[in-house]
């Protein structure tokens, strides 16, 4: 069984187990059947031979007496012999042959038998005459220079043995099927813990690190498997936590110098009037990059907080129209009037109630507008409507930029993913986390985000769908 497991089998473990059980049952029943068959056959044949011998001796004795008494009708004497189940009796009285059977004559007897008997030995031989097997016993009667042959038809015996063989074969077949069934049940029992392991591993793969296997201490094999599996998950969880903690720690540590820089820069900015033009330009550059730096650290902190699962939701029931308008206003606060996207809320979407964390929605829209600003020359329109199924509000942020190729549309939500077209602008403009934060926030709000072609096939549209609060439906 273990040998089969080491081969890279084409069959599954379950099929291999069933096959092993079936094969085991088959070979065992074949072995037992063969043993029964040959024992039975041997016993029956020996018995038959013994009976035939006894009968042959008795008949030979009768014939000897008859021959010695020189009875004239020897033929009748042979015919009247008690032959029991025998097919034929043959008498060779000094060259004259007498037979009780038409089909069996002198020529039916093998020469080996006849020569054995001629030389004075009692001899037994089995041979087949046509289809029926025959047992032939030859007894020499030397006193009257004769020999007697007794022939028994073994067809009945063969028939019995055939029936026995058929019964044994049927038993073997049933045993094999039963073996396969036992294999199936055993494989189910064996597979159950494996199925549990597989389910647990799948849960871990999608990020549920709290998954553990129950440890069955009564079963040393499975107990060991569960224990080592759990130990592995512990290790994995610890490593992931350590990574997340590292990101978080680094970001935290960066905040103190950032605070100092921001406060000092503000002092410089307020003293611009006194600065020479070159220094003034330098302050501009510093201010720009400091904002970016702050944004990156804030994004990193946000994502490590989301990873740690500690970012709690402050859910409020809010009106969709107002939410979208407020979010766009907050996100485009620092943009010149001309660069702000138009806002279009459909009459159906306007009064819908959403159970959301307002500030997370604000982060989503801010990041989408920022993304459009960096890679597509700014968003053109933010719209909200209720799709056909009526259970969600779809918020669309559209731009008139170069668009995103279909095969890149899921990748852009990966952390630090930079698309082919994004290389054009300074590759460090964004934090590289904006869209992955969008995806994460949307997920936390039980929503969905996807990318479609922009209006009229121009540019890109990010569509964020958020579920309409059930309590709100009248």
């Amino acid at each position, binding site marked *: 069984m273990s040998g089969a497991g080491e081969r890279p089998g084409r069959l599954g473990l379950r099929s291999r187990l069933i096959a092993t059980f079936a094969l085991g049952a088959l070979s065992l029943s074949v072995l037992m059947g063969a043993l029964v068959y040959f024992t039975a056959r041997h016993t029956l044949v020996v018995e038959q031979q013994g009976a035939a011998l006894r009968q042959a001796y008795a008949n030979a004795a009768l014939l000897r007496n008859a021959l010695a008494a020189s009875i004239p009708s020897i033929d009748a004497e042979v015919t009247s012999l008690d032959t029991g189940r025998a097919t034929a009796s043959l008498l060779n009285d000094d060259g004259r042959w007498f037979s009780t059977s038409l089909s069996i004559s002198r020529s039916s007897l093998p020469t080996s038998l006849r020569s054995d008997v001629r030389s004075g030995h009692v001899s037994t031989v089995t041979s087949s005459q046509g289809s029926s097997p025959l047992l032939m016993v030859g007894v020499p009667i030397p006193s009257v220079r004769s020999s007697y042959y007794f022939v028994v038809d073994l067809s009945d015996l063969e028939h019995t043995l055939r029936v026995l063989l058929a019964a044994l074969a049927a038993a073997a077949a049933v045993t094999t099927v039963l073996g396969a069934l036992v294999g199936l049940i055993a494989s189910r029992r064996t597979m159950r813990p494996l199925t549990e392991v597989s389910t647990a591993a799948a849960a871990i793969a999608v990020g549920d690190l709290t998954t553990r296997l129950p440890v069955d201490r009564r079963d040393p094999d499975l107990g060991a498997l569960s224990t080592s599996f759990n130990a592995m998950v512990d290790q994995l969880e610890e490593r992931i936590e350590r990574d997340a903690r590292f990101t978080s720690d680094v970001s*935290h540590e*960066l*905040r*103190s*110098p*950032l*605070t*100092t*820089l*921001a*406060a*000092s820069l*503000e*002092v410089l900015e*307020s*003293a611009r009037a006194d600065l020479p033009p070159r220094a003034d330009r330098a302050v501009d550059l510093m201010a720009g990059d400091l904002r970016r730096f*702050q944004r990156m*650290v*804030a994004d990193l*902190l946000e994502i490590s*907080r989301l990873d740690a699962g*500690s*970012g*709690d939701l*402050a859910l*409020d*029931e809010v009106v969709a129209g*107002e939410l979208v308008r*407020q979010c766009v206003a*907050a996100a485009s606060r620092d943009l010149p009037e001309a660069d702000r996207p138009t806002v279009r809320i459909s009459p159906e979407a306007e009064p819908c109630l959403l159970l959301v964390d*307002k*500030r997370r929605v*604000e982060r989503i829209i801010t990041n989408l507008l920022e993304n459009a600003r960096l890679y597509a020359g700014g968003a053109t329109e933010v719209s909200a409507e209720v799709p056909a199924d009526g259970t969600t509000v779809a918020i669309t942020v559209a731009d008139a930029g170069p668009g995103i190729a279909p095969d890149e549309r899921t990748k852009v939500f990966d952390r630090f993913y930079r698309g082919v077209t994004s290389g054009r602008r300074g590759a460090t403009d964004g934090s590289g986390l904006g869209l992955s934060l969008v995806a994460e926030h949307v997920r936390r709000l039980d929503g969905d985000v996807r990318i479609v072609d922009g209006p009229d096939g121009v540019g890109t549209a990010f569509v964020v769908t958020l579920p309409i609060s059930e309590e709100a439906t009248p």
Partner: protein
Amino acid sequence: MTDRILLVEDDERIRSSMRLSFEGEGYDVSEAGSGEEALDRFAHGDIDLVLVDLMLPGMDGFECCRAIRRGSAVPIIMVTARSDTHDVVAGLEAGADDYVTKPFVPKELAARMRALLRRARTDEESAEASTAIGDLVLLPDEGVLRRADGSEVHCTRTEFRLLCELAATPNKVVSREQLLERIWGYGYFGDGRLVDVHVRRLRTKIEPDPALPRHLVTVRGLGFKLVP
């Protein structure tokens, strides 16, 4: 009169840069590198607003807040490491009026400070009619809340202002957003926890049984109302 700010922060560089920035905005600045030092400074100086970092060596920011709160209604802004509920709520429970998270934008902090200082002044100037709330009497013009026996119920300025806002329209619901805007000067995205924590603190002072409020009532999904 220039407002004097007590800056409680253990990082000396941050302290120096913030002093520069605040002085640029026209404030007087006192610095403290630890909670103990802050209490000492507070006892000696005439402080109008306290800015306290929650992560301090020795006595932490929460303890520092509580200690200052025991004897004063001075506006307190806390600087938290993160905006998670635990830190924010614990800080507000300890007596802070508002919070900012690091890394903060100095302009934002300045706006928060102005909102609190303005409120502190307008409280003193407000002149509204007195309102009875159960056994208590709210005297907005005097800035006090009195029990039936004439003794004063100690409230922070934020709590007092919250009570005045609700008392101005008794039995009418005021939303969280309205309270955030009127008291803290926040817009649509203000943190509702600010209101919730201050309402909770206020209940412990005005309700006979804070777990079953009769005067400061929550109207689910809408906001709060005052039932005199």
